């Protein structure tokens, strides 16, 4: 496994290394769980299929993957994956996933979210998980509409989009997720689209290999409530899928911001990628320093030392 899991864990839990010798990589059949509940034609199918591909390609084992989500169409994701997973509450998948990541350096932590879950109810967590650079991958499946509740305005709906909560057209200015991610300090920011499978797989793989908080903004069409939303980015529908030029310096924050700022359909690929120590690593450093002062002592002896000062 060529994974970039931290060698210097916060030693909350030391899980045993998986013995991989006699195990073959998982087949798609072994990875798939429940049949997805999404509507036929939903972009999310493609993302799920590519997640399976990623697991197959990288030979990840069931027990080493955790798939975590909040609430929404996209967030049904964990039920469809045969791996440990959690379907948490609306908007809070990121702090939950952070709790897994910070205490379990041996696991791959993937969070799947939607535009409402990540940028509306969970907006605060997006900011802080990114700025703390907690090691995990967040894939936001953005359909620019609330699907599970049947067509209300989302924080990424364009101005003028007619929904059941804006029958005259949306009036609020939408969020640009990639710009926001760069601004709040995410160390890996990419955009892709469910309509381009190879690009999705390559982007998810690069995100997984990033040692830090990696954010993948993935356009995923809601055929039921916002059909044709992303046609302009789909060559099969007469649009253009503009990949970020090879010449772009992914460590140049301002250049990344400018590229992310281009009007829809804009650019696809990795806008920004820098290496900064993760929170996981920094907390592990603190632990190593403090534990160094108590080498060879059992937990009760350390506590006894503290109690001695309270006599």
């Amino acid at each position: 496994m060529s994974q970039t899991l931290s060698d210097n864990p916060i030693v909350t839990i030391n899980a045993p290394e998986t013995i991989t010798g006699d195990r073959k990589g998982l087949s798609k059949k072994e990875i798939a769980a429940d049949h997805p509940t999404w509507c036929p034609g939903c972009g999310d199918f493609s993302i799920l299929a590519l997640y399976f591909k990623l697991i197959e390609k990288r030979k990840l084992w069931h027990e080493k993957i955790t798939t975590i989500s909040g609430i929404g169409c996209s967030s049904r994701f964990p039920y469809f994956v045969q791996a440990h997973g959690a379907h948490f509450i609306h908007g809070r998948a990121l702090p939950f996933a952070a709790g897994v990541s910070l205490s379990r350096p041996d696991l791959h932590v993937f969070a799947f979210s939607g535009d409402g879950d990540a940028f509306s109810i969970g907006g605060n967590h997006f900011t802080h998980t990114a700025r703390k650079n907690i090691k995990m991958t967040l894939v936001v499946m953005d359909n620019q509409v609330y699907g599970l509740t049947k067509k209300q305005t989302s924080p990424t709906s364009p101005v003028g989009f007619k929904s059941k909560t804006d029958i005259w057209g949306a009036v609020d200015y939408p969020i640009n997720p990639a710009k926001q991610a760069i601004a709040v300090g995410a160390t890996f920011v990419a955009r892709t689209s469910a309509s381009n499978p190879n690009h999705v797989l390559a982007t998810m793989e690069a995100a997984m290999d990033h040692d830090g908080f990696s954010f993948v903004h993935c356009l995923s069409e809601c055929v039921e409530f916002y059909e044709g939303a992303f046609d302009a980015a789909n060559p099969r529908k007469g649009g253009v899928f503009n990949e970020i030029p090879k010449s772009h310096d992914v460590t140049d924050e301002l250049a990344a911001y400018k590229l992310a700022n281009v009007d829809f359909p804009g650019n696809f690929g990795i806008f920004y990628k820098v290496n900064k120590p993760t929170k996981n690593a920094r907390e592990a450093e603190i632990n190593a320093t403090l534990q160094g002062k108590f080498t060879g002592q059992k937990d009760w002896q350390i506590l006894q030392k503290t109690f001695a000062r309270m006599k």
Partner: protein
Amino acid sequence: MSETIAGVSSSGGAPKVSRINEVVIRIAGNSQDGIQAIGGFLARLAGRSEQEVMTFMTIPSTISGGPSIFQVRIGSGEVLTAGDDADVLLCFYQHSYEGHIGSLKKKGIVLYDSDHVTPKPEWQSDYHHVGIPISSLTVEAIGGTAKDKGKNIYALGLLAKMFDLNMPKLEKLLSERFTGKDPSILNNALAAFHAGHANSPTNVFETFQFNEPEQKGIPQVVMNGNEAVAYGIIAAGVRFGAAYPITPWTDIMEILRRELPKYGGSFIQCEDEIASVSMALGASFAGRVAVTGSSGPGISLKTEAIGWAVMAEMPLVVIDVQRGGPSTGMPTNIEQSDLNIGVFGGHGDSPRVVIAPANVKDCFYMAIEAVNLARKYSVPVIFLTDQGIATRIEAFDEPDLEKICQDITPDFTPVPTHKPYDLAAKDSITQHVKPGTRILDGRYPIATGLEHDEYGHPSGSPKVHMLQNAKRRKKLQALATTLPVPKIYGPPEGNILLVGWGSTEGPIREAVDRSRAAGDSVSAIHLRHINPLPNGLENIFSGFNHVFIVEMNDEGLYGYGQLGAVLRARYCDPKIQGITKTDGLTWKVKEIVELAKSKLRQ
């Protein structure tokens, strides 16, 4: 106690020495004067002398400054409360003098800083006044500065003289506290302390000696409730937590943030209350029960995620250091008004465990119990402490840490198959296997907030919902059968039974003692397990004509407090009545005695 101190003589001649069993000292000043430090030293000294001690403090909810008090009761016998009224009032300012003389017993001693306090002639006959220019004498003792920093330590010297306290032990405490990079700090403290001790005021006062306490030979540890909770959590083996700062919970998170890395753990400060409970649940899911905590509004914010923990059957410990509510309420005052949110908070039917420590020792041991209940029953455990117990200092027998400290590292042994919500499980109790564990039949579980089948996959079946609701309920019913029935304080039959919970055990017991001494038939029980309740309380209630539930919350729309309402609902017994108050202060013994009497007259 008071009677012996009241005999102070202001006549000349050598001060007489009286022997006492206990004393209540109230120190009043401003919050930045270090009056908590004086109280802390006295409490710690009492612990090292195997005396019993209990403290009570108020702090303003301002950043710096504002009137503040610290009351300490030290005794050679059993000390149950911090005392209703003080024997000695040490006051630094006119406002401390005028504001707190009412809490001094008649004929008690008021020891005042004559640099700042002008005594009132009309109070001279009621209280024995001893004026000492504490501020200027401190400056004189330390020298080289016009500031009166250190006057608290000077006053500590005065008290040491007055109560013939053990000087070597106090000096050791001072040197432990002040030894640091700058040796002049300790030298100044010792200079102020010795100057205070050497002071012989012209207004000669009596000195006191404590009767020798019974020596149990077990070393005592002295700490407040917040510290005891934090160290209990560590002893229980918890190695991950997350929280957001809020008064009066914050001390616990500061301790855990500082201490957990020593044990290979981490405590994370989150962006908000919801993120904290979510992160803690993520860590619990990842394999090892985690802790979060808060006070007041923070608990409200966590309720949705606590509901998820009930539904997903995820272990979690939530410490609620209760304060005055609702909303922002009274952040630095005491109240027991979170019982309802603890037991019922959240939508849907969401049974969880709620426990409440009665004293500082409980804070330590019950924190361990909370962790173990969460693990065993796969359930969130709400731990209801309060502002009073959080800052109250008590001494208790040093725990046998080698025996008590737990290693709860999870097991990752592969399992053949796993149903996280197995409906056939004994007593409906199930545990999750942790991520990282291989499940050989290839079916992996999802921890979920949706109603689910036995594997954690969504189910809209009404039958499944009823069965899973029953599972979540039945495991707590199984827990109830294991809970000890509380011991009755006093005879098992009589006229009045007082029922308390949480931090009020001391004053309730003292109210029982006082009432019985006056010939009234009063007993008490104290509940540590609030949800589920232990079985068999009805047998205790049947021995009494009246059952009064004593709690620090509002009497509610129907005339009884929050525990009162739960007990009424469970036992349908009209003799259950409420004795409640919400003045933001701990119970005074006389308040309980008087309210019980007036309730009888109703």
